[in-house]
């Protein structure tokens, strides 16, 4: 009976029963509330945007066979599709990034790992969003300029 008190062993590795547990500090902001709300609202919008995108690209007209450089150029000639694609880019990236942030918070075991995984995530987010936005706004299938090789331009450009 008394052996229970004195036997050393793996028990040492376990916290003493009544030791206080470390809980993370309270945050006192509405950030998680807004993040939660955003996931649902962006989800609803993404259903419309993504399904609309897939329908127009893959079902209307010649379907998958119509998608080439000229098709994209034609779509981005219209402000409507620019706004559509821009919304899709930003919403999907914010939504996906916040989703992966949640997953990192769940599965990263050490604070250092958690921090660096999130940094990598935010850098990937920033690069993709900046590049995507830049392309949507500055896209010009027929650039004009002295240093442009006219034969490399698509067939529908007047300079060709």
């Amino acid at each position, binding site marked *: 009976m008394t052996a229970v008190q004195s*036997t050393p062993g*793996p028990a040492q590795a*376990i916290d003493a029963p009544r030791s*206080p*547990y470390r809980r993370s500090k309270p945050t006192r902001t509405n950030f*998680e509330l807004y993040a*939660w709300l955003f996931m649902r609202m962006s989800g609803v919008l993404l259903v419309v945007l993504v399904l609309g995108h897939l329908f127009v690209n893959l079902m209307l007209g010649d379907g998958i066979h119509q998608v080439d450089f000229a098709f994209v150029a034609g779509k981005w000639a219209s402000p409507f599709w620019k706004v559509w694609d821009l919304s899709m880019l930003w919403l999907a990236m914010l939504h996906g990034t916040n989703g992966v942030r949640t997953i990192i918070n*769940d599965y990263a*075991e050490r604070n250092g790992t958690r921090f660096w995984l999130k940094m990598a995530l935010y850098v990937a987010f920033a690069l993709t969003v900046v590049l995507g936005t830049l392309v949507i706004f500055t896209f010009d299938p027929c650039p004009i300029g002295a240093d442009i090789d006219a034969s490399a331009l698509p067939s529908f450009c007047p300079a060709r």
Partner: protein
Amino acid sequence: MARETDATPESTAGAIPSFDVTVRIRRYDPEQDESPHWEDYKVSVHGTDRLLDALHIIKWEQDGSLTFRRSCAHGVCGSDAMRINGRNRLACKALLKDLDPSKPITVEPIKGLPVEKDLVVDMEPFFQSYREVMPFLITSGHEPTKERLQSAHDRERFDDTTKCILCAACTSSCPVFWTDGQYFGPAAIVNAHRFIFDSRDEGADLRLEVLNDREGVWRCRTTFNCSEACPRGIQVTKAIAEVKQALLTRKV
């Protein structure tokens, strides 16, 4: 391994069928074992026996070192939540004949809490988040000289969440709680719900503030494990959703 019963021969004759089951228990003795391991026990039981009865036979007749908690043995005290055939249940409410006795019945401690010995876990992290939601009546002004009356309609609002027996079956079935144990967990939210929606209570804002935290209701991913695990049949996920709703609208 047949048990002695004091029933008369007339009443036992073909009355309750008896059969053999193998109970496969996750054993861990921190004084001896490096890590937990499975051990099989064969017991002869009756069709009316619950898993708790089988554990009693094992402890009393085969291996006295088997350690588990139980108190009321009738689903009231919440001591004996364990993972039975992979699902959280109360051993005292799990009938053996319903657990497919043809195969070994696996019994493990509930997940996500530190195992102290065999089926006994340290419940302190669970009760710590329970205490943090202030599970007591908060009022202001003078103490009334009689009961604080409430209409049946107002009582109905939080009736479901008054049934909690703090067994931890829900919290220890939640995959978000398993990840780092920081999430407040369904049981704490259920017990906050019980006061947040009580018309006599004035502490709703305080509790909502606590549950608005990073580790609060927003970590819930509506997995529904808690609702399935609750031995009291509380609609736990619904209660969590009502607290989310109250936070979004700031209305109770």
